[in-house]
């Protein structure tokens, strides 16, 4: 029991520090061309506007600094914010950039260097976060139709047993399976997993994307439309194959 006279003996504790891991998108920059960065960021966001709205973001400057480019962190943070994202950290920055970040109340993270250099890893624009993922636990199973305006996100695989309407958006860090008609937008491997695949039993999608490589409805070949298909990435090209 507390001896503090101001504290009632039965007062429940109102706070507690806990350690928790979050899955947060990381933006890996490889150029100091701010105009290009802003433009490409907009393009990525337009693929899944709902997903990115007010999304937290860690900025990774390692690659950039390695190449000897310098970037004004304050301007960069401003571009990111204007795009509707919320920068919550920086890593791989130089002394000046880290100082700028802290002035903007943005925390500085250290690089988890696991011996593998970024060069040999050959990173893409979006890098997976170094969070361990337990596969089965993070699979999301949905039995109801996904309607226009609804958005589903799975940090693992996503399995849907009903239709996905036009105007709906489904996203997974892993694979996507739709055992019905897919009319909406389906984005697999949204954290950069190029091995992710999309399976559906009737392809009529508005957009399909794997690790940021996408096709819109107009680009779909008539030979695969309204067919059961699987979609995967080969040499950064989306392959759509009939699986009937």
């Amino acid at each position: 029991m507390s001896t503090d006279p101001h504290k009632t003996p039965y007062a429940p504790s109102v706070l507690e520090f806990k350690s928790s891991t979050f899955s947060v998108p990381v933006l890996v920059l490889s150029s100091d061309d701010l105009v290009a960065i802003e433009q490409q960021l907009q393009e990525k966001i337009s693929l899944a506007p709902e997903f990115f709205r007010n999304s937290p973001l860690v900025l990774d400057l390692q690659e950039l600094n390695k190449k000897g480019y310098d970037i004004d962190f304050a301007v960069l943070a401003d571009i990111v914010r204007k795009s509707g994202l919320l920068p919550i950290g920086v890593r791989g920055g130089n002394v000046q950039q880290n100082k700028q970040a802290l002035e903007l109340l943005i925390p500085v993270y250290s690089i988890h260097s696991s011996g593998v250099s970024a060069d040999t890893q050959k990173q893409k624009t979006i890098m997976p976060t170094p969070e361990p993922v337990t596969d089965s636990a993070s699979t999301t199973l949905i039995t109801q139709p996904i309607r226009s305006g609804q958005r589903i996100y799975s940090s693992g695989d996503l399995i849907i047993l009903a239709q996905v309407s036009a105007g709906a958006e489904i996203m997974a860090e892993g694979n996507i399976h739709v055992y019905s008609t897919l009319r909406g937008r389906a984005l697999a491997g949204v954290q950069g997993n190029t091995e992710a695949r999309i399976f559906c039993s009737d392809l009529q999608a508005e957009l399909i994307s794997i690790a940021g490589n996408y096709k819109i409805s107009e680009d779909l070949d008539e030979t695969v439309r309204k067919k059961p298909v699987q979609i995967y990435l080969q040499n950064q090209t989306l392959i759509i194959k009939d699986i009937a």
Partner: protein
Amino acid sequence: MARIIVVTSGKGGVGKTTTSAAIAMGLAKKGHKTAVIDFDVGLRNLDLIMGCERRVVYDFVNVINGEASLNQALIRDKNCKQLYILPASQTRDKDALSQEGVGKILDALKKDFKYIVCDSPAGIEKGAHLAMYFADDAFVVTNPEVSSVRDSDRMLGILASKSRRAERNEEPIKEYLLLSRYSPDRVKLGEMLSVDDVQEILSLHLLGVIPESKSVLNASNSGIPVILDEKSDAGQAYADIVARYLGEDRPHRFIDDKKGFFGKFFGSK
């Protein structure tokens, strides 16, 4: 147990109020004590369709604000003793309704009524949200055109995720499709989606097809729900819908343009 039915669509002008009036009357005529509530605060349409506009003294908002009792505001229908109307206010704005207030009124009505029909305003904003929030069943009124179908699909997503049943993780709202203002001729000409098209897009249980019909306008001009016009095609369509909702198995009609043929076989009783 009382059941709350929301008549909703997303899009305006598709026939929600027409449908609310018709099915409320149909349920009441089958002997079930029924109340129909106008959620379209600021527009007030239902009382005109029900022909009781001159008898409106208090409204939905008065009851929520405690300015009138529920019994003072409920208007008994002139054609059917089992039917009561709770009109909307014409003078207030949409914000006059609160979730708590609506919940209280519905709870009170549930004690006394078998069916409570909520006529939703258009859109997906507050009024439409309140009309569907407490529902057990949803009659989704859709016209056979792409924009109406898309709006209905959106509304179905809201029913499945934002209703009280969804929030409490209870059994979901039962959803029914009512395809209204259907015109087989125009479907043939390719000007409208067919029943099959709409069902494929929405994958929803079809409760009935209501044909595009002059009788609807005649009925609303004279303030009598179209279901009481037993000779009319739309009136019969609504009678079928009520019967199917109550568990009767009736074949669908008004889907082909063989009106005469089907009319002879399954026509009015």
